[in-house]
């Protein structure tokens, strides 16, 4: 059983298909949800929360049906929405306590955990201030605190770094990493920022036009593409490239001492340094190019072209 199971899910809003035949099983500790605007990320999150009834197929969270068992699912989920969503005239601690009580915590326990959650996200000193006096970064953090306070099994973060300055963003990313490391909570993070997903997630679901463009394990994907390398050398480049071909590498040389090579699994970077040293070649730069999430994302966007998109691309090329 995955964290999230999608079985041919189709969601229609105002007679428009927004999610189209989504099928897949998400197992990751932290799952990234990527896609361009209008791809259906928020609709998928709302479907998982039971706000939208799939017109076809089934969606399950921890094996529970998102429509029939939505009360139970919501009890085990902490949700941090993308936009401002809070009760401004309540103090931070009162707001978090209120949300924890709604999630099912007894009143006294909810108060205790509200204090703890606010300290945990770094709002301990301002917890008695009204939420509408908070800065944008603080509002993001108080939303995270309310999502955490009741100890959910799944934490859904919709654009958690939206509108944050670099320091606040880094702090939010670090918090997410800490939560992931703690291990008791699964995360579903929706973001436009590939870097955020890259830093925090181990599995990614990429949506495009309401369809799954890619569903992959980021680490495995990187591992399978780790053999590509770029070198910048000074010295006898041609002789050096012949030698590394002898190791079993595929290799191409370019002007300015640049070499691109695909190295087999058994060859390490150290072997190249040894040959370079023997031949008096200086390696000025070595870029072991991993397949970044950006590459995965762009590839998914290219691969998943529907018939209309393909026609448009062809016309564009002509």
């Amino acid at each position: 059983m995955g964290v999230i199971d999608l079985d041919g899910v189709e969601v229609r809003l105002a007679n428009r298909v927004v999610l189209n035949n989504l099928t897949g099983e998400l197992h990751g500790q932290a799952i990234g949800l990527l896609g361009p605007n209008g791809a259906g990320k928020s609709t998928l999150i709302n479907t998982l929360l039971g706000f939208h009834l799939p017109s076809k197929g089934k969606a399950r969270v921890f094996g529970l049906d998102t429509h029939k068992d939505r009360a139970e699912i919501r009890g085990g989920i902490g949700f941090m929405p993308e936009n401002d969503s809070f009760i401004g005239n309540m103090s931070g601690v009162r707001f978090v306590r209120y949300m924890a009580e709604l999630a099912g915590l007894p009143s006294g326990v909810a108060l205790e955990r509200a204090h703890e959650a606010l300290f945990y996200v770094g709002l301990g000193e301002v917890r008695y201030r009204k939420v509408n006096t908070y800065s944008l970064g603080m509002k993001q953090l108080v939303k995270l605190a309310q999502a955490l306070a009741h100890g959910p099994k799944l934490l859904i973060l919709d654009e958690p770094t939206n509108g944050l300055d670099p320091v606040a963003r880094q702090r939010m990313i670090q918090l997410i990493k800490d939560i992931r490391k703690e291990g008791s909570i699964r995360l579903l993070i929706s973001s436009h920022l590939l870097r955020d997903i890259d830093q925090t997630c181990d599995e990614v679901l990429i949506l495009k036009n309401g369809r799954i463009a890619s569903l992959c394990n980021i680490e495995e994907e990187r591992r399978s593409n780790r053999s590509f390398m770029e070198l910048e050398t000074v010295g006898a480049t041609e002789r050096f490239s012949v030698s590394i071909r002898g190791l079993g590498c595929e290799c191409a040389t370019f002007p300015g001492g640049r070499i691109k090579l695909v190295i087999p699994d058994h060859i390490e970077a150290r072997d190249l340094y040894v040959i370079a040293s023997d031949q008096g070649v200086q390696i000025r730069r070595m870029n072991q190019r991993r397949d970044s999430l950006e590459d995965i994302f762009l590839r998914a966007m290219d691969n998943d072209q529907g018939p209309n998109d393909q026609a448009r691309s062809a016309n564009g090329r002509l």
Partner: protein
Amino acid sequence: MAVYKRNYSAYTGTVTPVWTRVLVLARYAFEEAWSSKITVGLFVFCLLPCVLSLVVIYLADNPIARALVGGRAQEMLAINAKFFLKVLQTQSWLALVMASWIAPRLITFDLADNALPILLSHPISRFGYVFGKFIALFGSLSLITWIPCLLLFADQGYSSSQPWAMSNLQIAMGLLAGSIIWIAFLSVLGLALSSWVKWRVVATGVIFAAVFVPAGVGAIVSAVLRTKWGLLLNVPVMMSNLWQKLLGAPAPINERLSVPTLAIAVMLLLACLVCMGMLNKRIRAREVVRG
């Protein structure tokens, strides 16, 4: 999780039953409503007529006071269905003032800050959300309608030298039923209208307008069509008719102001259904973050 450790730990304790979450909403809404000094001031003001009525009951049941007041005032001091109808009417219209102040506080804060996506992502339904707010408003209005009315009835029953309470039970039942129908209607109306108006002050005005503007329209309808059915848009007349019948008070002298009870009940029910529809539409539209 501990404050001093600043690390996260999962919650492993007990969880409250799902049905009690409505009461959590009601409790927070009640606290929100009564956190304003204006609410407390209004509450005190709304109880002043009850204090006056208490004095009247005291005078009516005190032989020395009755003798001092004299013969002409004897009729004024008669404690009967007519007296309690006046008390109920006064308290009910004060309840309208109170509802128009409290109802917007319960809903517009949530809507203005876009709190519904967070609130409804918890194990609570749209109906549960509205019902929680309804309980808070209904409870607040109860404090100035049927509770003081029944206390006055009990006081009269206790103070009267003759066995009065048992022979006038219809008055007590009428006070209870009449108040409950009115404050339930006011609560639904107040919440529905507040959900559609962003500014609290405007929402307060709209609630008053929703009660009194149709009365004017009804008067025009009655005058143009030469019928009395226009009264069904006149909430004050309609409710006066209903209260009078429930308490068993004398009928109004002008027979043209009388409306069948069934028509009143149907009209109130229709109004409540429209309000529920408005609430459902508004909350459904705001429960998710569109993206």
